[in-house]
C-alpha cells in the first residue's frame, strides 16, 4: 500500500462509513475532475450517509442527487469519463444495479477495447451489498459473480475501514471501470455471522485505525488475515469476519485470505497458500450455484491439484432468492462454515 506520508500523520478510529466518506473527501479535494452523484447522495448524504457533508463542503456540482435511473447514472458517468472526468457514482443498493447492467457490460467495460484506446470510462460504481440487515429480497443480494465474468470490469470488495478507504481511493484513481461493493452489514462494525451475539462496533479493531489523508491499497493484492498451515480459507467482504469467527470456534490452524478484489484476483497469494496447506475452503454469501466460488474452486484445483489433500469445498448462500424471514437460515454463518472446515481436514 502506498502511504502519502505527508498527509497521513494523523490517524483516527473510523467505521467503514466514515472511512469511505474520508476517501471521497480526499479524492474531491485532490482532483477537481472527480465528482460524485447518485440517488440521495447530495444534500442528504446518502441513505447510508457515506457522502455525508460532501455537498456542503464541495458545492452543488461536485456531489449531487440524480433521477432514479441506475442506467442513466451509469450512462452519464461513462459520458463524463469519456470527457475526462472521474465520476464516482453510488447505486443505492447493489440489487438495484441490474437496470444498469447493460451500460456496465456493453459500454463501460468495452469502451476502451472497442475504440482501441481512444475512449475509456474511468468510473467507480459504489454500492452497498450483501445481507444481514433484514432487507429482504432486494436489499440483501451479493451480485459479484455477474461482474467477475465480465471482461473489462474490475470488482473490489473491502472488509474493513482501512482497506475500504485505501481501495476506494485506488479505484477512483484507476483508469478502468471499477465496481466497488460495500458490505453494508460491516458499515458500523465487524460481523461474525452470529446474529444473536452482541453487536460490535469498529472501535478497537486494528483495521479501524485509518489515516486522515490520502493513501491507497492496491487493487489485486489479497491480505492474509490469519496465517495458518492446515487449510486455506478464501473469503471477501462480510465473510472474512464470519470465516475468522468460525475458524476460531474450531481452533483449526487455518490460513484466512481476504481477497479484497475478485478482479483483478491475487492468484499468486491463493496458490502459494493452498500449496502450503493442501486444503481449501471457499466462503461467500451469494447463492452458491455459478457463484464466484466456482471460479475460485476451479482455479485452485487447476493450479494445486497435486498439492490437494482433500476436495476444495464451498460454503455459500442457498440457491434461493434472499428470503426475508429466513435470513439466518439462508446466511452461510459459522454453523455452516465450521462443519465444512472440519470436513476439509477429515478427508
Amino acid at each position, binding site marked *: 500500500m502506498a502511504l502519502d506520508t505527508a498527509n497521513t500523520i494523523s490517524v483516527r478510529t473510523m467505521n467503514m462509513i466514515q472511512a469511505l466518506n474520508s476517501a471521497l473527501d480526499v479524492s474531491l479535494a485532490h482532483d477537481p475532475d472527480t465528482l460524485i452523484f447518485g*440517488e*440521495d447522495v*447530495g*444534500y*442528504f448524504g446518502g*441513505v447510508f450517509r457515506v457522502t455525508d457533508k460532501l455537498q456542503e463542503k464541495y458545492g*452543488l*456540482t461536485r456531489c*449531487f*442527487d*440524480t*433521477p*432514479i*435511473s441506475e*442506467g*442513466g447514472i451509469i450512462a452519464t458517468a461513462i459520458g463524463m469519463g469519456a470527457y475526462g472526468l472521474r465520476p464516482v457514482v453510488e447505486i443505492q443498493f447493489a*440489487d*438495484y444495479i*441490474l*437496470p444498469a447492467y447493460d451500460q456496465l457490460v456493453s459500454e463501460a467495460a468495452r469502451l476502451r477495447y472497442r475504440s482501441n484506446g481512444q475512449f475509456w470510462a474511468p468510473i467507480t460504481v459504489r454500492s452497498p451489498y450483501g445481507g444481514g440487515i*433484514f*432487507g*429482504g*429480497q*432486494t*436489499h440483501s443480494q451479493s451480485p459479484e459473480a455477474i461482474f467477475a465474468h465480465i471482461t473489462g470490469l474490475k470488482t473490489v470488495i473491502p472488509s474493513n475501514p482501512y482497506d475500504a478507504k485505501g481501495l476506494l481511493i485506488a479505484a477512483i484513481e484507476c483508469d478502468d471501470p471499477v465496481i466497488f461493493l460495500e458490505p453494508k452489514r460491516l458499515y458500523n462494525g465487524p460481523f461474525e455471522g452470529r446474529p444473536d451475539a452482541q453487536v460490535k462496533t469498529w472501535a478497537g479493531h486494528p483495521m479501524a485505525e485509518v489515516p486522515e489523508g490520502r493513501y491507497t491499497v492496491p487493487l489485486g493484492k489479497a491480505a492474509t488475515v490469519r496465517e495458518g498451515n492446515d487449510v486455506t480459507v478464501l473469503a471477501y467482504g462480510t465473510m472474512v469476519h464470519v470465516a475468522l469467527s468460525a475458524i476460531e470456534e474450531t481452533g483449526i490452524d487455518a490460513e484466512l485470505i481476504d481477497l479484497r478484489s475478485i478482479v483483478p484476483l491475487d492468484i499468486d497469494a491463493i496458490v502459494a497458500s493452498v500449496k502450503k496447506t493442501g486444503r481449501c475452503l471457499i466462503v461467500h454469501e451469494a447463492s452458491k*450455484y455459478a457463484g464466484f466460488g466456482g471460479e475460485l474452486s476451479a482455479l485452485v484445483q487447476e493450479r494445486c491439484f497435486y498439492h490437494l489433500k482433500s476436495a476444495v469445498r464451498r460454503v455459500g448462500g*442457498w*440457491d*434461493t*432468492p434472499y*428470503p*426475508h*424471514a*429466513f435470513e439466518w*437460515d*439462508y446466511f452461510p454463518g459459522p454453523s455452516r462454515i465450521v462443519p465444512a472446515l472440519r470436513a476439509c481436514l477429515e478427508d
Partner: protein
Amino acid sequence: MLNIPRLQLHVPEPPARPGDPVSFDHIDIPAAGAVRRPDTAAREEDMRDLPYTLIRVLDDEGRAVGPWDPKLDPAVLLKGLRAMLMTRLFDDRMFRAHRQGKTSFYMKSTGEEAIGAAQSLVLGAGDMSFPTYRMSAWLMARDYPLLDMVNQIFSNADDPLHGKQLPILTSARDYGFYSISGNLGSRFGHAVGWAMASAYKGDDKIAIGYVGDGTTAEGGVHEAMTFASVYRAPAILCITNNQWAISSYSGFAGAEATTFAARAIAYGLPGLRVDGNDFLAVWAATQWAADRARTNHGTTVIELFTYRAEGHSTSDDPTKYRPADEASHWPLGDPIARLKQHLIAIGEWDEARHEALVAELTETIRVAVKAGEAVGTLGKSKPDVRHMFEGIFKEPDWRHIEQRNEMGI
C-alpha cells in the same frame, strides 16, 4: 472559447431546505371545477392542454363542482372515507410497531390515501392493480383481512407470503393487487403486458399501474408507455407525484421543466393531471380513463398530484432534508379531512359519527394487532423454514432438495 458566458452545470434545488421558510406559492392551483371534461373517445391531439392543468372537484367549502363531479352515492363516499381512515390509523399503528421492534420495516401512505381508496372502488373485481408500497388503501377499500396484513408485517408463522417478502411489499391476487416488486421500474411494464393479454383474449379486464414521481425516471417506465401506445393497451398508468423520492425532490425527476402528466404527450396518450388529495377528482379521472380503456381507446396517463406528508419509510427522517413544517403548508390539504368536510357539507356525516368511526376502526386494528402478536412478531415467530425452498420453481430441483437435507429439514 467563444465570447459568451461559460457553460454551467445546473443542479436542481428544492424551494426550501430545513430552516427555510415554507411556501408553495410557486405551485399553480386552478379553482375546483375549472377544467373541461372531454368525451372519453376524444382524440389525444384535442386534449394536449389537460396535462398542464389540475382536475379538481372539491372546492374550499367541500362542495363538489364542475364537469368532473362523479355524483357518487353517499354510501360510496362513506366506504371511501372508511378505507382512507383505516389506512391512516393502521399506518400509525404499524409505525409504532416498528419502533417497538415488532417488524423490520414499514412505509406509510399518509396524505395519499384518496388514491388507493378511490381507484380500488372504481375498478372491478376482475381488473388488476400493479401497485406501489403506498397503496394499502386499495386493500382496505376491498376489505383485505387486516390480520393477514399484520402477519406479513410481523413476518410471523402466519405470514401469508411465508416470510419470503418484506413487510408492506404485499401480493393479494384475489384483491386485484399484483405482487409489489422491490425494484421500482417494473410495474408499468407488467401492467401493460397484463392489459395486452386481456385484449388478446378479447376479455373486458383492464390494468392500472403506479409509479412515483421519482420512479418516472426509470427506463422501464418509458418502455411500458411505448408498448401501451403501440398496442393500445387497455390500461391506466398513474404517476403518484408526492413531490419527494426519499430525500430527492421532484425536480430531480424533471418537475422543474414540466408536469408529469405531460409525459403522456410523448406517446400520443391522453394525460390527465389530477388533485390527488381530492377523492372525487381521483374517482372521476379514473373512471374516465377506465371507460376509455374498456372501449378500446387504449391507455390514459394520470398524474396524481399530492404530497408525501411523512417520511419515506421507517428508515427515514424527513426533517433532515426538508422543513419540518412543510407538510402543514401543503395547499391541497388532507384527503381525509376534505372528504369528511364534503360529507358533512352534503349532510351525510358529522363529527360525532366521525369520532365513532375512528374509535371503531382503532378497535378493529387493535384486535388484529393483538391477534398478530399472539402468533408472534419479528424474530419471535416465523413461517416454517421449509418454505424457504419452495416456490423457486414450480418444482424444486436437486439443489433445493440437497440443501434442505443439508439443513436437516
